[in-house]
């Protein structure tokens, strides 16, 4: 059947004035539309183009006598009233549907244009939808606990010894308080192969405060964190399934964790992940008030709470400060008066989101800017097309079409375009979300589910409407701000330099400016990432294999046993084929594990009433460590076989520590004492500085210095010789074979000792720049898309205006202008547009990129090199955008150009 719907809206427009009853109008429209379609087909069959045929058919409607239709009353036919009932919305809905179909047809007729426009929008909309799905999950969705908006966490240190947590629990009138500690690493033994598991040590009331129950069994009961009642454990769903086959029979059974027998009391639900997704089990605190050392001095815990009914955040903030002050008197030893003086309380979600908020908002804004560029581009494309459709529009208005009707038609077209972009964009988004997720730290994943949910669909729908309106209004408005009669006469030619041309140029300038801001941002991040990878970490990570070996701490009850285990292990590993040098260390650089001990440094007496003792990073290493890691000993000596348990205790300090405490003096022979020990340790060597914490060397504030202890003399923050160590092997062959060999060796030595965290040192180094890298690449990707869109836009405008100026160019050439000057003229236009955008963009960048300060390393936000490179790229874009139109213009045949009319 032939399709005549395209004519209906035209006919309706002309009948509007007559205000016919709907039945009558429908019938007339039906009849006339059929006639026009027949005319159109006839014209096409006799060789007319689509445009000619359409115009010919539309001319059929040109006659003032059409109005006479209003005088002729006819009784309605049966199908008319039926049809009217079916299309209950009346004319509005029918018209809208017709407009949509007309728009779809227009799109099909210009496939190149439509694809370019829809793709631009799809990139913008898709990126935004994907980004928003993450922003919405992390920042907007509440935590998955009942009444989660009343959950809070103590901040600004806000950690307390177990005794302090109990004091808060007893005294707080605004909060139900619970303490928790993430990263309780223990061995699960007696269930097949030994496993190293990460769990969390918690107050017995933690689950009550979170208001989450067990999926099987029960959670801890009040008092089960008291010494003697605490031999209990709760399992995560994943551990329960993997190790216990999802058998509820495990509840009530006893399992061995870290050498301690514990009764399984419950299994938590699948999605429960507090404090993080790494947590596979929960054990209660071990509260023993009779042991002041463990109750008040060790293992400070973060504190979270639920606001009591009626209590406000402000009240809780005031209360925690006064309680922290009063608590000072409870400590059994002198405590710094300012300890936790600034403690405050913030919403738990705000704490968990942390720095991620800024990162996500920066990225969302960046991709928002990309969408803005895409909109400007499409508006530009539509304007270009509108100018070629001006004659059609002018004719339609002259023929009596209501202007509002034409605006509606144009807006429908842009909406349909935006809708198409939105659909493709959603597909892109669905595809991008897993990629974007990689930028997130694991903690964010603990409560967020990243899906294209209804919020994202709603957001995308909203974006389509807003973008459709924003890029559709400009051409619709432009189509009326002109002298239409003049247009009909000139046929729409040679209108360059009109308001439309200027508007389009302004859009390009704005596009380029926005692209510059994004590129400068990305440039700064990429440059600082590059600088970061150029940092000398202080050791050589090549070919180094690391494995965590974790005997239960009980093994080190006797120092000699632990030392002997590692000595034997190192000896055997060294003999493995493929392994070269071998050492062991309590921690490796950049691993995010920070072993610390409180110390007193010779010449810096500790004043207990004023501040707490300085904390030193304290690594326990075997004597081969410095050589293997290629950490130079710059003064004195490293460790030797003689540095045994019985010998005089010695340490090696880092060069920075030596320079800080003993500037201009010989540090060899100076002394440092771990505060809970009597003996002073003697400095025997100074090692080159190593980036222990991250490549940017931003040590946590509380770290005052770094020292190495020989393993056999080592002590950790828990006053014990560290039992868990990392084996470090510089391999000479296949690391896989070495790994398998080491696993076998450890099993032979002690089947209850698991091997975990098998990583190459190079991967550890690379993982440490993950945040910087993901930010840089994402913003870089956004900037790339922005530049591409801006380049396409600039090309579009220059080549359109060049085409409009064909006559002028022909004239210049006829008057003797050489081709090279025409080439320069066109190229100059492109350069001028980009230069203006560049100037605006650079100015905006100087202000806007400040938000990136926190992500930059050794680079200011006013980095000249970045600005210069971005400017060069932009000039390249301008040259590229101008080159093709310029070449086309220079090859114009003046005679033919002058005939263009």
């Amino acid at each position, binding site marked *: 059947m032939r399709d005549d719907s395209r004519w209906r809206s035209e006919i309706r427009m002309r009948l509007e004035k007559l205000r016919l009853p709907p039945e009558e109008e429908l019938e007339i429209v039906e*009849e*006339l539309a059929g006639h*026009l379609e027949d005319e159109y087909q006839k014209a096409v069959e006799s060789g007319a183009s689509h445009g000619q045929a359409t115009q010919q058919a539309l001319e059929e409607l*040109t*006659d003032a*006598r*059409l109005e006479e239709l209003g005088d002729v009353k006819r009784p309605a036919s049966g199908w008319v009233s039926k049809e009217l009932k079916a299309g209950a919305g009346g004319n509005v809905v029918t018209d809208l549907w017709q407009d949509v179909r007309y728009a779809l047809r227009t799109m099909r007729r210009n496939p190149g244009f439509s694809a370019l426009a829809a793709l631009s929008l799809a990139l913008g909309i898709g990126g935004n939808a994907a980004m928003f799905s993450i922003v919405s999950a992390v920042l907007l969705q509440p935590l998955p606990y009942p009444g989660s908006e009343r959950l809070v966490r103590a901040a600004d240190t806000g950690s307390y010894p177990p005794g302090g947590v109990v004091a808060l629990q007893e005294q707080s009138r605004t909060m139900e308080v619970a303490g928790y500690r993430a990263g309780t690493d223990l061995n699960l033994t007696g269930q097949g192969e030994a496993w190293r598991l990460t769990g969390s040590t918690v107050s017995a009331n933690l689950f009550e405060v979170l208001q989450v129950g067990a999926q099987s069994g029960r959670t801890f009961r009040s008092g089960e964190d008291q010494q003697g009642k605490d031999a209990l454990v709760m399992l995560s769903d994943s551990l329960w399934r993997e190790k216990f086959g999802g058998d509820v029979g495990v509840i009530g059974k006893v399992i061995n964790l870290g050498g301690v027998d514990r009764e399984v009391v419950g299994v938590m639900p699948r999605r429960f992940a507090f404090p993080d997704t790494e947590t596979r089990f929960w054990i209660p605190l071990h509260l023993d008030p009779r042991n002041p050392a463990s109750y008040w001095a060790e293992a400070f815990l973060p504190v979270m709470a639920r606001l009591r009914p009626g209590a406000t955040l402000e009240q809780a903030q005031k209360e925690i400060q006064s309680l922290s002050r009063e608590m000072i008197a409870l400590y059994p030893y002198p405590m710094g008066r300012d300890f936790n003086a600034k403690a405050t309380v913030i919403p738990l979600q705000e704490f968990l989101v942390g720095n991620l908020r800024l990162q996500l908002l920066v990225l969302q804004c960046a991709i928002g800017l990309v969408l803005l560029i895409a909109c400007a581009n499409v508006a530009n494309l539509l304007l270009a097309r509108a100018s070629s459709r001006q004659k059609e529009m002018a004719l339609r208005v002259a023929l009596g079409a209501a202007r509002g009707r034409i605006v509606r038609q144009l807006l429908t077209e842009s909406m349909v375009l935006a809708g198409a972009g939105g659909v493709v964009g959603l597909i892109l988004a669905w595809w991008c979300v897993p990629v974007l997720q990689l930028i997130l730290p694991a903690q964010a994943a603990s409560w967020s589910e990243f899906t294209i949910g209804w919020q994202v669909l709603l957001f995308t729908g909203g974006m389509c409407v807003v973008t459709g309106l924003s890029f559709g209004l400009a051409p619709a408005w432009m189509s009326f701000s002109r002298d239409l009669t003049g247009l009909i006469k000139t046929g729409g030619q040679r209108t360059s330099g009109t308001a439309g041309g200027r508007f389009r140029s302004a859009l390009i300038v704005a596009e380029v400016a926005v692209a510059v801001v994004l590129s400068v941002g990305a440039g700064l991040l990429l440059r600082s990432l590059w600088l970061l990878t150029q940092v000398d970490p202080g050791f050589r990570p090549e070919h180094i294999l690391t494995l965590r070996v974790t005997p239960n701490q009980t093994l080190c009850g006797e120092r000699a046993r632990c030392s002997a285990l590692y000595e034997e292990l190192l000896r055997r590993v060294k003999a493995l084929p493929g392994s070269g040098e071998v050492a062991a260390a309590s921690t490796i650089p950049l691993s995010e594990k920070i072993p610390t001990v409180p110390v007193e440094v010779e010449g810096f007496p500790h004043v207990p009433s004023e501040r707490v003792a300085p904390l030193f990073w304290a690594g326990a290493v075997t004597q081969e460590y410095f050589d293997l890691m290629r950490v130079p000993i710059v003064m004195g000596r490293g460790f030797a076989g003689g540095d045994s348990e019985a010998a005089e205790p010695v340490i090696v300090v880092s060069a920075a520590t030596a320079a800080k405490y003993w500037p201009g003096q010989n540090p060899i022979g100076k002394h440092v004492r771990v505060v809970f020990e009597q003996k002073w340790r003697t400095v025997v060597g100074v090692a080159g500085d190593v980036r222990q914490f991250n490549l940017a060397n931003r040590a946590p504030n509380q770290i005052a210095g770094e020292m190495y202890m020989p393993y056999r003399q080592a002590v950790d923050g828990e006053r014990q010789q560290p039992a868990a160590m990392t084996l470090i092997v510089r391999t000479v062959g296949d690391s896989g074979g070495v790994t398998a060999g080491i696993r076998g060796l450890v099993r032979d030595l002690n089947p209850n000792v698991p091997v975990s965290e098998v990583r190459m040192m190079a991967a550890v180094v690379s993982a440490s720049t993950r945040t910087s890298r993901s930010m840089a690449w994402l913003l870089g990707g956004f900037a790339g898309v922005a530049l591409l869109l801006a380049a396409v836009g600039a090309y579009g405008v220059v080549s359109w205006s060049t085409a409009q100026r064909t006559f002028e160019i022909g004239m210049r050439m006829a008057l003797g202008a050489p081709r090279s000057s025409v080439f320069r003229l066109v190229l100059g236009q492109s350069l001028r547009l980009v230069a203006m955008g560049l100037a605006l963009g650079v100015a905006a960048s100087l202000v806007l990129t400040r938000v990136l300060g926190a992500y930059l390393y050794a680079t200011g936000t006013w980095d000249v090199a970045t600005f210069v490179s971005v400017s060069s790229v932009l000039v390249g874009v301008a040259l590229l955008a101008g080159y093709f139109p310029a070449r086309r213009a220079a090859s114009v045949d003046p005679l033919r150009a002058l005939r263009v009319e």
Partner: protein
Amino acid sequence: MTHTRPPGFDRELKKGSAELLILSLVEFRARHGYDIGKLIEERSDGALSFRVASLYPLLYRLEKRGWIKGKWVEKAGQRRRRYYHLTEKGREELTERRSGWESFVAAIRRITEAEHA
């Protein structure tokens, strides 16, 4: 109303002739608007042609006077079309108009031929 190429036709004459043309075309079979327009154009070798904007007001007026009657016809695979056929009243009008027209043309011819002779 009628869109005639040879200039000089009187408005009332055109109107009268157009009505006569339409009535004649639907005398023996029902036809739809496009068909009518096309036949007029073809049979006059393009000398007479109707635009949609003038044809349909005319058709509707004839229908209102009860000379022709339109009826919607739907055929499988085709668009719905409105076919017009001559009514009894229309047939009387046509006969009357036709004889009037023929004598008018004959009179004109007599005069113009005499001049040429």
